[in-house]
């Protein structure tokens, strides 16, 4: 397989009630990614946009950002799902040989609608939706199942929130840099047991873009490309009742495939930094199990022992993670961008020293129905 590199990245600052329109956010990040790569829009020959019609409140929402993404006169198509899957589709387009420099851009404004109504609409309209279930309550069902099966406690979840909000203080793009304690998390308002306000990610607006290029072109442009070493992706059953929510089986499979491609045998030792999709604090622990950083049920041990802190053996979410900024659809692409910055040594105050292999992770569907795992390196 030909090597593919990420040659440019761009992201907005993530905020609630951002005042720019979808198009303005998209233009901002595309311009940043182009400038980062040292190329112009004429060098892009195809565009992948990432959006969701319910979040945008318009049908064929991708088409409305065609001009802002520079897609006019080019081939453009869309992924309706997390940006990590948009990047996957972009990668496949490059690998097809039919396309050269490929732009992937995601946008979302959670603040302009009603998140609970939109996540409720992800559930089956005939058997589940009328119950009022949404992202928070379904995740609470998962958290409760996970902590009961493997005897984790709410303090361990709270520690993830403390760590990531603290890390966010080093990230100028993060929405919620916070100095908080475990007690602050435990005493924050209960949303749905065991998830409290500070265990949950915020409502966010923002956009992100990356440019992918095959080795044949990537070497011609200015930035040192960050190479894609491995990718894995896998999906589980749609209904949350069909799955054991304490077992991230599709993530295990996705990670296994990505590690095989990147020749990684001991992920905890060989990976230098990871950006994972912690929409809720418990998810970081559960996904670490799925990523095989530890055995089943031992996610809590990693946070207790400080393994995932900055300065630990494997820092997880130096950016502050999704819990510090959660633009839906964008957040998985943001994880990839953060991994790129780490490999390039451009992560400034959140830089993990000498990062050579970085992992980025995105999810799609309720309670992590499907996962996409990326391994990036020099």
């Amino acid at each position, binding site marked *: 397989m030909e090597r593919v590199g990420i040659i440019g990245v761009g992201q*907005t*600052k993530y905020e609630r009630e*951002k*005042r*720019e329109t979808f198009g*303005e956010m998209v233009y*901002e990040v595309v*311009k*940043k990614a182009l*400038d980062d790569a040292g190329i112009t829009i004429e060098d892009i020959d195809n565009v992948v946009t990432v959006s969701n019609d319910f979040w945008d*409140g318009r049908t064929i929402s991708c088409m409305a950002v065609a001009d802002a993404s520079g897609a006019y006169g080019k081939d453009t198509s869309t992924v309706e799902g997390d940006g990590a899957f948009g990047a996957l589709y972009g990668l496949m387009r490059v690998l097809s040989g039919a396309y050269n420099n490929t732009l992937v851009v995601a946008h979302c404004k959670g603040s302009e609608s009603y998140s*609970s*109504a939109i996540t*409720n609409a992800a559930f089956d*309209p*005939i*058997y*589940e939706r*009328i*119950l*009022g*279930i*949404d992202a*928070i*309550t379904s995740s*609470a*069902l*998962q*958290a*409760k*199942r996970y902590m*009961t099966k493997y005897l984790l406690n709410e303090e361990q979840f709270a520690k993830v929130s403390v760590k990531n909000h603290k890390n966010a203080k080093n990230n*100028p793009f993060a929405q919620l840099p916070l100095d908080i304690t475990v007690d602050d998390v435990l005493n924050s*308002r*209960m*949303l*749905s*047991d*065991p*998830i409290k306000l500070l265990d949950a990610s915020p409502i966010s607006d923002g956009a992100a873009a990356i440019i992918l290029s095959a080795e044949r072109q990537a070497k011609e442009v200015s930035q040192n490309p960050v190479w894609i070493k491995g990718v894995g992706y896998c999906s589980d*059953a*749609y*209904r*949350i*009742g*069909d799955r054991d*929510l304490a077992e991230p089986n599709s993530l295990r499979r996705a990670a296994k495939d990505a590690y095989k491609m990147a020749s990684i045998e001991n992920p905890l030792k060989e990976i230098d930094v990871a950006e994972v999709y912690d929409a809720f604090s418990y998810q970081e622990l559960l996904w670490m199990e799925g990523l095989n950083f530890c055995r089943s049920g031992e996610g809590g041990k990693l946070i207790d022992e400080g393994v995932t802190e900055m300065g630990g053996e494997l820092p997880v979410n130096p950016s502050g993670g999704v819990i510090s900024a959660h633009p839906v659809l964008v957040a998985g692409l943001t994880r990839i961008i953060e991994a790129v910055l780490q490999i390039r040594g451009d992560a400034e105050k959140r830089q993990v020293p000498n990062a050579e292999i970085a992992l980025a992770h995105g999810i799609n569907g309720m309670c992590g129905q499907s996962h996409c795992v990326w391994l990036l390196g020099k």
Partner: protein
Amino acid sequence: MTIYIKNEIDLKRGYKTMDWKEDVKEMVYQGRIKVPYTWSVGEVGSRFFIELRDKKKIWGDKCPRCGTVFVPPRKVCSKCYSNIGEWVEVGTKGTLLTFTVVRYKNNLQSRDAPFAYGIIKLDGADTGLLHLLGEVDLEQINIGMRVEAVFGEDRKGEILDIKYFRPLKEA
């Protein structure tokens, strides 16, 4: 007269958002989307809801190849992709796989918070059914608890014909 639009992008920080809002009072537009849908329930769903409405019985279906019993029923096995053709009646009693007590209110919820959701594995089924828990002390719910379906009086052929599941008082 020429008025310039402030669209300069600071590559480190993004749009200089404060600048334009100093110059112009921003406007927002209230959307009016309201689209009614009518979803077909399909063959297995229709049978499931008719049995629920008319006989207060819960039916699932069984994969002929791997033997998994699905509730709600479906036509294709999600595990082995076989066509499912065999109906199986499952119990109205079951075991709680997980639960949460909801403490916030919104207008989508079918009852006022606090209330509880559970995923219930009905006796004879292999999958869990998402539903409400009722007639229960919210602080005394636990995983593994035995529960039973409580049916509504005025049943319409929908999932809320089961009002909720309540703790089973074993004889």
